[in-house]
């Protein structure tokens, strides 16, 4: 059910600062809410988000219960060489999504 959207520019000049945007569908259930019967709804959140650029980690975030559903994360990085960016979200209940994007540096 997870669906990730990624926006990485297709091309960039060497040394250019590029903006990367990501959005993933996820309920981010806090673990603090109760049902009508008073039973706790178990926590179901994304815990970590990591991005590598040709194998080197360039961005990482720890997510918590306070974060809204469908986390939208945007950051910038330096375009150094052509290659692959890999995006990885991991969370409760074995949640794991990996997406890749290609960047051409001229």
């Amino acid at each position: 059910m997870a669906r990730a959207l990624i926006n990485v520019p297709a091309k960039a000049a060497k040394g250019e600062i590029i903006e990367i945007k990501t959005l993933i569908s996820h309920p981010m259930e806090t673990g603090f809410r109760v049902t009508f019967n008073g039973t706790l709804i178990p926590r179901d959140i994304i815990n970590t988000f990591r991005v590598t650029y040709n194998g080197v980690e360039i961005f990482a975030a720890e997510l918590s219960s306070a974060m809204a559903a469908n986390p939208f994360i945007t950051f910038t990085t330096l375009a150094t060489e052509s290659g692959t960016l890999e995006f990885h979200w991991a969370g409760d209940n074995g949640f794991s999504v990996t997406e890749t994007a290609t960047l051409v540096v001229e």
Partner: protein
Amino acid sequence: MSASLSRRSLLAGASASLIAAPAVAQGTAHIVVIGGGFGGSSVARSLKQLAPNIRVTMVEPNRVFTACPFSNEVIAGLRDLPAQQFTYDGVARSGVEIDFTHASAIDAAAKRVTLADGTVLTYDRLVLSPGIDIRWGALRGYDEAASARMPHAWKAGEQTMLLRRQLEAMEDGGLVVMSAPDNPFRCPPGPYERASLIAWYLKTKKPKSKLILLDAKDNFSKQRLFQQAWSQLFPNLEWIGLSKGGKVSSVDANTLSVTTDFETYKAQVVNIIPPQRAGLIAEAAGVSDRSGWCPIDPVTFESRLQPNIHVIGDAAVAGAMPKSAFAANAQAKVCAAAIVALLHNRTPQEPRLINTCYSIVMPDYGISVAGVYKPGKGLLMDIEGAGGTSPLQAPDSTRKMEADLALGWYNTITREVFG
């Protein structure tokens, strides 16, 4: 809804005072109403009905009112604009003085309104029913000039016709892109009714065309009913909500392109329903807060920021009550009764208000949502268990009946307010 309770309370809230209210003794009170839409015209007429001795002046720049409800049908070619238009003859006949001009300044301390022609009106109480204004520039690239190429059509009139002409002129196979804003905004089900009717128009007239509705929200009014109708009737309509990247971040009127954080859509026709705020005069009066809307007392509709100024209709922060013509009309009656009570040093009665929003999905296919509201926690709260929405499973005859009821409602309210 519980008929005995709500009916009784509604009567108590609005029309019962109509019978009970004695005329103001000296007849010297002067109420100024700014805005002649469903809210303003209703409150002006209600005041004259409740207390004929009160002097009521309404300030409205347009000599002809163009109604928003049913204007989506105009866009789809199902109706013509004159069916949306009303003069103020009926309002004037009921004893309301009308100044056809803009209000340019309000001095709340001196209880004075300055009009565009320099006239100064002094009031005992002022009612603002200014509707909405567009937050130009809140969406990057969307300014007043851009709206000439990418109409909003969220104030009925020339914009409505512009969007209709653009759809008519588009060749079969063209892409139409609409965008819906985040809450709050005028007419919560409106964007979805419009999307339905445009999809119906395309399906019948331009079957190779497609409509994409980009939405800054994941949830909207009558969502299940709309989505069910779309999946059954309109394969040419794609709705993209917030969590699927539907929030529009910028537009370019020159290239007719609409950009989200993840995609750029190049369209032949673009309809941007932009972020909104209370009509600009609200800010001049000091009754709007940082949200751009006007916080009010839910019993009297008096502003929480300025004494002796009441705000009704789309401009007000009415809690659970949506921004609709039906709501503005209901609020106007409550506000008028409260003003008459206050002029007599009586305590205004706690009101019950009702709202119904009809939406037309296509000809002979109507759906509705109704709610009943009461003051609570300083706002208007939904009374749980009252009201409701159309059934999800219903025969065609039910949908047809609701479409008929919608038109019946429109004819009734416009006759009451402008007739």
